[in-house]
């Protein structure tokens, strides 16, 4: 229970506007005053005096031009405070960090999973489809890969090309097929066993920066690797018949002039 002394102390700091009425210590002090007529009279006297003083002082108006200048300065302060809060507010910080984390995760997934690039899944299916046929479906043709453009033109396939460094690759057979109505030129390379595929990049939505390889996997459990790069409007694919991405990178490094 609140003592008389504490109640008096609390009530002496009571705001005459009544804004303190819901405060727990003020309610307790008012209860004490209700039981002590002297304190009650003292408090009512104080309240009347405070209200009279406040009413007199508030009657002195603020000049309109002063009020306008003060309002402008107050708005500048409030605007500055809000800008500071936008960076200091823990909620905003949490949102910012979460956003950065999301960007990081998306970037990691995007970069780390090559096959998630547009068209890579289709390339994997195309390579798998192309690799299922036997040697009897190939036309025997032993020639360096760099000489095949004319042969394919004769077969109504325009645009066959290999990247610099791959011209000397020893081709042993060639064929054409269609993947989702897209003409594909195929060259089988003897050592080591690999396939070169050339087709238009745009229908599969492939867009690969110049001189960059993009790697993917195909076959049972994604055991075999392929690599794609873009040569103008055409896509060039190297697919190992039996080898993972590490082996494919070793294979690519064997071509002395091939860009890395």
């Amino acid at each position: 229970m609140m003592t008389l002394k504490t109640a008096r102390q609390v009530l002496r700091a009571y705001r005459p506007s009544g804004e303190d009425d819901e405060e727990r210590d003020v309610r307790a002090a008012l209860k004490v005053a209700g039981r002590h007529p002297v304190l009650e009279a003292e408090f009512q006297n104080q309240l009347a005096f405070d209200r009279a003083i406040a009413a007199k002082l508030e009657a002195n108006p603020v000049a309109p031009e002063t009020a306008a200048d003060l309002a402008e300065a107050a708005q500048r302060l409030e605007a500055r405070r809000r800008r500071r809060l936008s960076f200091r507010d823990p909620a905003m910080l949490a949102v910012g960090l979460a956003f950065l984390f999301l960007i990081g995760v998306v970037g990691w997934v995007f970069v780390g999973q090559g096959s998630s690039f547009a068209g890579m899944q289709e390339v994997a299916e195309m390579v798998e489809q192309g690799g299922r046929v036997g040697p009897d479906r190939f036309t025997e043709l032993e020639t360096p890969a760099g000489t095949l453009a004319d042969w394919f033109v004769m077969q109504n396939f325009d645009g066959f090309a290999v990247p610099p460094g791959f011209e000397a690759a020893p081709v042993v057979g060639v064929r054409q097929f269609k993947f989702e109505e897209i003409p594909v030129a195929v060259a089988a390379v003897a050592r080591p066993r690999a396939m070169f595929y050339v087709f238009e990049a745009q229908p599969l939505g492939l867009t690969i920066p110049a001189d960059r390889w993009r790697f993917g996997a195909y076959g049972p459990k994604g055991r075999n690797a392929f690599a794609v790069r873009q040569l103008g409007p055409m896509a060039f694919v190297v697919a190992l018949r039996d080898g993972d991405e590490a082996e494919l990178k070793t294979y690519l490094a064997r071509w002395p002039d091939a860009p890395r």
Partner: protein
Amino acid sequence: MSDRDPWEQSLLRFARILVGEEAPARQLTLEVLEAATTRPPAHADAGEIGKFLYRELRRRALERRPATPATPATPATPATPVNGSVDLAPDAAAAVHPLETDRIEAAFRDLPEPGRSALALLLLDGLDADTIARVLGLNDADLAAALHGARVALHAALVPVAPEVQP
């Protein structure tokens, strides 16, 4: 801050009590608002800025104005002691009603600190006791004593010119 006026006008009213005249009070209020905008306190939530504004305004005002007497004025009317303190005279409000605002402001300005600031923040700005205590650096007991002393002194200063107040 008070909901009777925009808060910046409450700040001006506090400045009026501290420095007296309108022009310097206006200048001081604008200076303090500018200071809070350019060099805001570390924890810039509304409550902290409010305390900063009042503290800074009072600090600057006291620097520019001769210090008021440190001891409370003696009430003109002998009061009944209650628990060792001096009571506010009975029906004290009656002394206030017929007076002009200028007269009350002048009496208010002559009150000793920190009672003058405490009472101004309570009555004019509507600050709660905790906030006033923090602005003025007082504990609860000292704040209550300062407020009571300021009331008694203010009433004592007003009574001699209040013709209808009976001795």
